[in-house]
């Protein structure tokens, strides 16, 4: 660890960004090798928030382990829970009622919007503009209020259970979601006025942190990061789960692969999510919200893998079951982990300011990387 202090033999400055640093959104630790302001090497050091969720899950039952996954990518906790529930349902071949599927998809998309809202504000803050953060939170707060009313919590909801959802929708749900959509649509133009169109912002983002299509695939990137480089990777389109195959929405693709493309992909994705919610909100079928399941869930012997699209990319849940009530081995393929590995490739030769901008567009959530 000697070389992390001071300079190396070539006279390059070695600087620790993190684990407590305003731009790393948590406890990411990057060791930068700088020549002046130019970045020569980026080395991530992980583990500051490692809770070994995979090991914890080995001693939790199939009902209990879902709640832990909310703590991985806490900004899309619904979708994490959804992935776990889907894996268990796939393994046990539980038929999920239509109503539950609709509710789940609406919740997923609302979570996605909320997550992107936070990303938008935080990324603008990385670039030095504080105001967008608060404006983003105005809309995000509406979503968390909706979540609170129906699910009972604002961030780590634990609303999905194997076989459906935990409780039925709140009677106000549809009304609230509709008023949110209205609010969102009236405020969306402000995002462009305040940030997207700004010349300083565009200069900071365009042509910075370029990730080519080949590299995006090779680095295992997924989600908006890969889609900005032109990789078709939306799991909702490619391997549709729940009722995504019946929905009309576009997979947003860009080919530039730079920070601005990643930014635009996320902005447009929010609107696609709104589109999905609009399609579903009036058509939630009546019926059961939860399938009848046994009190103690036992997965058959075997290996089960489920991929879902979280706000950050592809989340995979890999369960190895020995036939008992707890998983033998569980692995979460987290999107942030792979996206982070592409960071060094993106920012080599750029300035410190670009590192912050590129990292902002990767939308890293550190507990998701460390697990």
């Amino acid at each position: 660890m000697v070389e992390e202090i001071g300079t190396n033999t070539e006279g390059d400055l070695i600087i620790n960004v993190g684990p407590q640093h305003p731009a790393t959104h948590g406890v990411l630790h990057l060791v930068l090798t700088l020549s002046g302001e130019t970045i020569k090497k980026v080395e991530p050091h992980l583990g500051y928030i490692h809770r070994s969720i995979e090991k914890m899950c080995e001693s939790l039952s199939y009902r209990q382990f879902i709640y832990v996954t909310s703590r991985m990518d806490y900004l899309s906790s619904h979708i994490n829970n959804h992935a776990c529930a889907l894996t268990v349902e796939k393994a046990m071949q539980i038929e999920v009622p239509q109503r539950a599927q609709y509710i789940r998809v609406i919740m997923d998309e609302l979570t996605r919007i909320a997550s992107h809202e936070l990303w938008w504000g935080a990324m603008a803050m990385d670039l030095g503009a504080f105001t967008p953060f608060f404006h983003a939170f105005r809309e995000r707060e509406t979503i968390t209020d909706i979540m609170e009313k129906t699910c009972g919590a604002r961030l780590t909801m634990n609303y999905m259970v194997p076989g459906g959802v935990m409780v039925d929708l709140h009677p106000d749900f549809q009304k609230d979601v509709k008023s949110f959509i209205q609010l969102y649509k009236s405020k969306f133009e402000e995002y462009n006025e305040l940030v997207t169109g700004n010349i300083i912002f565009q200069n900071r983002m365009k042509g910075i942190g370029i990730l080519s299509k080949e590299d995006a695939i090779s680095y295992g990137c997924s989600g908006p990061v890969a889609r900005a480089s032109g990789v078709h990777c939306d799991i909702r389109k490619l391997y549709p789960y729940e009722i995504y195959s019946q929905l009309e929405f576009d997979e947003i693709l860009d080919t530039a692969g730079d920070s601005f493309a990643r930014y635009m992909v996320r902005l447009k994705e929010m609107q696609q999510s709104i589109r999905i919610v609009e399609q579903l909100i009036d058509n939630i079928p009546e019926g059961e919200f939860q399938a009848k399941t046994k009190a103690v869930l036992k997965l058959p012997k075997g290996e089960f893998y489920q991929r879902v699209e979280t706000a950050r990319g592809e989340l995979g849940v890999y369960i190895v079951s020995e036939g008992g009530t707890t998983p033998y081995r569980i692995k979460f393929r987290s999107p942030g982990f792979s996206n982070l590995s592409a960071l060094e490739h993106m920012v080599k030769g750029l300035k410190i300011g670009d590192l912050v901008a590129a990292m902002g567009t990767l939308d890293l959530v550190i507990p998701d990387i460390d697990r």
Partner: protein
Amino acid sequence: MFIKDYIKDVYGAVKSLLTGMRMTGYYFTHHKEIITEQYPDNRATLHLAERFRGEVVMSHDENNEHACTGCSACEIACPNGTIKIINKFDITPEGKKKKAIDTFVYHLELCTMCNLCVQACPTDAIKMAQNFEHSVYDRSKLTKKLNKDGSKLREGIE
């Protein structure tokens, strides 16, 4: 041509900056857009969703009776070991031994408000309360006894 592009660049740049300033200027002059909630002051009007999960409580009726049979379903369902149920055996008037709870121990400091215990409870004895102001100066105060002193099982609940 070069000069024309140069001027165009400068014009576009200034315009985009002014657009942003117009927006912040709008919010500067429109104070009704402010969304701040002044939390400790608005306690009286603070409306929490009825499903909000703040802590686990056991509901007692006016006769100081609860519905907990001490079946430990919640204890098994809890992922964190938040709940510990200590049972005792009452002697009924007929001389039979009957299981009843002695203490329902609830470790608030371990609880993640996942709602699994409430879901698991067969008699709806416990529920989630909306209290969210949990901070105390002494950590041992977070370990709570949920059944009130002298309370007993409501008649007719098995």
